[in-house]
């Protein structure tokens, strides 16, 4: 019914509650609804370590409008942002509630000296944590494996960062919109080879929200609804060291679940606009393959050919994605659902994709390279 989001910035002065409130308010106002129309609330926010609050869903609940309502926080690591609207979908599709407000928030800036420190705690305390690992470290392994398996170069991958940061120039909430070149990416500071600074999305503060309503309630609220036609999610084994990292099998499972529900047989032909999770530039390519939108190892070529440009045949991350708009973990995924909503309603302004978009896919990814959530939406 509606969507809203705050600015995404490295540091915002607002508290997590205030960010949640702002996103929720915007989403409700865009649907001409108020808090009293909301029958249930789902919250999404990633590790407690960011806010330094135990049970932080409880802490954030009044900001998200959950007080004195059925309120639940769901949690699937980085995949949370797209999963929150999925959980809101089952609140409504079950028949239990007419409306559900889905709010995602992340405030990473309180972590000192850098939010990355909070991620050491995600690793196995016996086997991995003593190595002093962080996220960039394991994603460098995955990126390297992906490059090796399919013969993809760093330059090809860098095109994704160039595209997404340029797209973000048109997003009013974006943190890192920029006109850069492949050469800039290649020359940026190496973090953990082959990952360089411009291959990575930034740490951010921000919130995003969407409002869902049942078919019956929707008729009274708007003439122009966007329907959730497919949902899917899947988690793979914790033991990531035992898996082939070149291909996200769990995403294939999640995507097929969502496409089956949406009646999509050939995703490459039937999907008009895609918001694929891009915390790193190689992940957009990886995820296009998992989403069955490119054959294994071929997503880089689609990017080179311009297919995934905003005015291309299959626009990917017209919002600017996490690389451009920013990456407040849970909020970043919900931002993608917001973008699909705006694209399908034709409300994306300068970001509007050229082709007539009727079917959109939003996807997020999380945990130890292990989980994906997929949402298929169609215009009314």
């Amino acid at each position, binding site marked *: 019914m509606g969507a809203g989001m705050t600015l995404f910035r490295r540091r915002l002065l607002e508290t997590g509650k205030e960010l949640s409130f702002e996103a929720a308010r915007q989403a409700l106002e865009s649907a001409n609804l108020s808090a009293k129309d909301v029958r249930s609330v789902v919250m999404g926010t*990633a*590790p*407690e*370590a960011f806010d*330094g*609050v*135990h*049970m932080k*869903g*409880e*802490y*954030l*609940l*009044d900001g998200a409008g*959950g*007080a*004195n*309502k*059925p*309120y*639940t*926080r*769901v*949690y*699937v*690591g980085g995949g949370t942002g797209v*999963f929150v609207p999925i*959980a809101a*979908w*089952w*609140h409504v*599709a*079950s*028949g*239990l509630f007419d409306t559900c407000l889905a709010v995602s928030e992340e405030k990473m800036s309180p972590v000192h000296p850098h939010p990355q420190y909070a*991620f050491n*705690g*995600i690793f*196995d*305390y016996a086997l991995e944590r003593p190595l002093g690992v962080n996220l960039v470290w394991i994603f460098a392994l995955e990126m390297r494996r992906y490059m090796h398996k399919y013969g993809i170069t760093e330059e090809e991958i860098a095109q994704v960062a160039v595209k997404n940061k340029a797209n973000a120039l048109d997003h009013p909430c974006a943190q890192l919109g920029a006109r850069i070149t492949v050469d800039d990416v290649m020359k940026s500071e190496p973090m953990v080879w082959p990952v360089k600074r411009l291959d990575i999305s930034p740490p951010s503060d921000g919130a995003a929200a969407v409002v869902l309503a049942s078919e019956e309630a929707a008729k009274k609220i708007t003439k122009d609804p966007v329907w959730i036609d497919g*949902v*899917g*999610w*899947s*988690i*793979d*084994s*914790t*033991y990531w060291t035992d898996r082939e990292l070149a291909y996200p*099998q*769990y995403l294939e*499972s*999640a995507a097929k*679940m969502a496409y089956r*529900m949406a009646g999509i047989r050939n995703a490459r032909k039937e999907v008009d606009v895609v918001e694929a999770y891009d915390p790193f530039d190689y992940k957009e390519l990886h995820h296009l393959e998992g989403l069955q939108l490119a054959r294994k190892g071929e997503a880089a070529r689609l990017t080179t050919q311009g297919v995934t440009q905003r005015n291309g045949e299959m626009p990917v991350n017209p919002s600017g994605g996490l690389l451009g708009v920013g990456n407040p973990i849970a909020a970043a995924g919900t931002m993608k659902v917001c973008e699909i909503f705006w694209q399908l309603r034709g409300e994306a302004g300068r970001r509007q994709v050229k082709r007539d978009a009727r079917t959109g896919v939003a996807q997020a990814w*999380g*945990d*130890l390279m*292990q*989980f994906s959530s997929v949402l298929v939406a169609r215009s009314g």
Partner: protein
Amino acid sequence: MNTLRDIAIVGVGYSGFSPHTRGLSFKELMFEAARRAYDDAGVDPRKDVGSFISCTEDLWEGNSIADEYMPDQVGAALRPMCTVTADGIQGLAMAFMQIETGLVDTVSVEAHSKLSDVLNRDDVLRFAFDPVFARGASRSPYFLAGLEMNRYLYESRNEREACAAVVVKNRGNALLNPRASYGERMSASKVLRSKTIAHPLKKQEVSQPTDGCVVLVLSSKASRRPRAPVWIEGIGWSSGTPWIQDADFAQAHYTRLSVEMACRMAGVDEPKVDLYELDDTFSYKELQHMEAVGLCARGEAGKMIQQGRTARDADLPVNPSGGSLGVGHLVEATGLHKVLEACLQLRGEAGRMQVNGAKKALAQSWRGLPTSSGAAVILGVR
């Protein structure tokens, strides 16, 4: 509300239920409970279970993004699985809704406690308080329970001794429960003589930690299962304000709202059931929750327990299992433990704890300090 599909708990499994489970990791506890639940339900998790839910919270696990560590041991690798950071009954509600959508037929819900691994339980609890306005108030998180208990007793006019009677009853009930670690025949005066935790709350009135795991299997295809299905007649959940300064200590509104929602779903005005498994994290909470679920009027709970009307063999048994005071507190698994005990009662498998002729039960949970979040479920056999 539209017509809902009939959904039942078709399998239960548990493991642990001991203050120390040395030599077993939380994954092994989960594996054992899941195996038992799937065997009980006669399902193969790799084929028959459409979705998996785990109820957990990072700081209890000692891992950020703790949901990473949940899939393998319950059979969920490469399957739809998610974490719900809430008490188990809320996880049960999510499973219930997933089935109601028609997307899946069978869902596994898991919650566990491995509190013996947590060296600083009180500090973790303190970390749940608002960092600016409340966390600095006291080194001990229990100050809030003391305040609430004082205010509750003052406003409800229940007697102080009634709280001690809750402890005596529940720990006595626990003597017959094979899962209970804190069964004891004790007197009210022993409770009242124990150390003060936060005035007026005494040490014996605080449920003590235990380890354990509960897995439940929910399905809309109950008729094909080997065990008598325990039907979910109604389920509800609600959260109050997170500001402890604004909370109403006299009443558990979150429980009232949860039960009202469950009753609406069950199509009844009030939950007329044969037994109650209510949250008793602290002694006074059982009284407060008795009033909130509509078992008695405000201020009557104390009299009821002192008259023995909530004993296991009386007309309105409350916590015949021994509750959290008798069995031990299981953090996010506390609610699923209540549901487990209710299911065993309704299936007639509660052994020496059996409440005769139990056909309906209400299980209710509270998420603990400093929250005002709770859930309730009405269960029945036909």
